[in-house]
């Protein structure tokens, strides 16, 4: 009998060119594939920012369908709700397994035909409009899942090893200023195409190594605000919590870090008055958003990327910098495999987000507007 060992533990990687310069997906695929043994072939995926420069004004919906019927129902719904500038099947290469079908739609919200509909789907509140649309499709249409829904970005994910999924989605042919990647080792949730990372909503994407033990509490908290968890994987809550806390409530990523990975009560006890007040208020207001359990995550968003660990750093994360590019990964070797002569390498501290934003010019280059 051959002795084998499961090296269990997902792998994550990501990098961002702060000046907005675009590079192909070859490097990120190499980086995550170096950590192939962190996954077991049951999930891998990539998020890319800046890939659709010709449609940067439009929300790019990446939708996964189980069958043609689901596509028909979904497209009828999309036609009723949105202006579709262009759409088509996502370019793929053959893969030796049963797989869903993938389509991309470049859309924008439009006036609704009835008053009741216009009240629920308000054209002026574009992001909100898209969130509602995504929640509706994921919850109500059997066999249809919106994989990503931001502008000038997209998520490519599925069941397989990272090199397989990269090849399937032809990510070497896309060019992005920010790439993140995931290699999955599912522990207590199913390995299915929708359960692969990144998880995404609007411009948010999350890749995650670890386990959100507070999933149930987070899910119920999110339901109060209209977010429906439908993807059967804990990481999904992180994407929606970011949307709620950062986009809707306007809190900074530093605050998000303090909410997701708060210090223990014993530590808060030892703080000065002002800090104690802040942390106590955050724990009371956002208790339902606390992420319990071990995690390291890399989050992509409109204009940047950040990495974060759980409050006692139970999962690995290394960061490095070279010129205008910042890298993060589960293992240092995954960074050095794609970048030589780094200026700086460091191990981020528990609960302290490493936030990297595009420069002003970089932002303008990708999104065509100022921040």
């Amino acid at each position, binding site marked *: 009998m051959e002795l084998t060992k499961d*090296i269990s533990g997902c792998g994550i990687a990501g990098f961002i060119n702060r000046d907005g310069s675009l590079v192909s997906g070859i490097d990120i695929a190499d980086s995550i594939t*170096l*950590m192939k*043994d962190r996954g077991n072939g049951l999930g891998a995926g990539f998020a890319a920012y800046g890939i659709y420069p010709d449609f940067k004004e439009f929300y790019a919906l990446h939708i996964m369908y189980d069958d043609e019927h689901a596509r028909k129902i979904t497209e009828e719904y999309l036609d009723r709700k949105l202006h579709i500038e262009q759409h088509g099947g996502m370019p793929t290469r053959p893969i030796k397994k049963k797989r869903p079908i993938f389509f991309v739609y470049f859309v924008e919200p439009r006036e609704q035909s009835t008053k009741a509909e216009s009240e629920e789907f308000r054209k002026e509140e574009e992001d909100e409009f898209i969130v509602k649309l995504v929640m509706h499709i994921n919850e109500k249409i059997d066999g249809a899942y919106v994989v990503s829904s931001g502008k000038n970005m997209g998520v490519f994910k599925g069941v397989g090893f990272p090199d397989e999924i990269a090849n399937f989605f032809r990510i070497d042919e896309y060019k992005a200023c920010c790439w993140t990647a995931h290699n999955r080792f599912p522990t207590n949730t199913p390995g299915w195409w929708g359960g692969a990372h990144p998880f995404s909503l609007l411009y948010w994407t999350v890749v995650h190594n670890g386990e959100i033990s507070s999933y149930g509490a987070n899910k119920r908290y999110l339901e109060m605000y209209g977010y429906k968890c439908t993807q059967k994987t804990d990481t999904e809550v992180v994407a929606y919590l970011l949307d709620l806390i950062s986009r809707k409530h306007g809190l900074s990523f530093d605050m998000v870090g303090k909410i997701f990975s708060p210090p223990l009560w014993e*530590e808060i006890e*030892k703080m000065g008055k002002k800090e104690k007040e802040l942390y106590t208020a955050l724990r009371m207001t956002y208790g339902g958003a606390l992420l319990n359990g071990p995690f390291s995550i890399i989050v992509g968003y409109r204009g940047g990327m950040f990495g974060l660990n759980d409050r*006692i*750093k139970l999962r*690995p994360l*290394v960061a490095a910098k070279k010129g205008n590019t910042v890298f993060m990964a589960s*293992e*240092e*070797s*995954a960074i*050095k*495999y794609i970048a030589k002569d780094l200026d700086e*390498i460091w*191990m981020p*501290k*528990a609960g302290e987000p490493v936030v990297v934003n595009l420069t002003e010019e970089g932002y303008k280059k990708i999104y065509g507007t100022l921040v």
Partner: protein
Amino acid sequence: MYEIDAKNVYYRALNETIRSAIKNHNKDLVIENVCGQYYIGTGLSDPDVTLTIHGVPGNDLGAFMNGPKIIVHDDAQDGLGNTMNGGRIVVYGSAGDVLAYSMRGGSIFVEKDVGYRACIHMKAYKDMNPTVVVGGCAGAFMGEYMAGGTLILLGLTKDKNKAVTGNYLATGMHGGSIFIRGEVDDNLLWNQAMTIKPTDEDYKVIQENVKEFCNIFKNDYNKIMKEEFVKVVPKSTRPYGHLYIPGP
């Protein structure tokens, strides 16, 4: 000298190559282009073998190792020296989390920083006394549940934004000695350990190991020894003795 090129070689194949080279009586192995291969040196036991590694070795470098010497000319990753029983590992760079986890013999020298949970569950037995010397700073939970052995932290990379060690230092420690150069904030210690001034006997141990460190990494011994050390010791040999059952 026996050279091995590890470029794009899968970890299992690399480790097989290393083992068969040692079986064929090679003692001095130089491994080039290492990048993330796990388990290098795991379980090797010939004390005359030296592995020189260029590139970043993967997790669990030298795990369960019992005799050989490993020299790393780059950073190392997580789990270095996991349950190591004998031999020596030298890292010309930094190392990741859980360094020397459950280490029970031999020595580890790291030039720069180490991550979280260094030397947790380290233990000693009779004449087996594991020794770890770290030149830079360490993350939180250093020496957690430590039961034996010697850990010396020099803090040469510390500055006003970078503390020599994180919190929960020596939580649940019940044996062994931790020596830290410079001052240690009592708040880092939580409840189960305390700092005292090292004795003359202790300083002999510190001096001997710092000399060794300076020989390896070419540091200025006198400059390092100018600053005083503190010793972290457990308050009790059984910190959790009464956790579940109220004691006398």
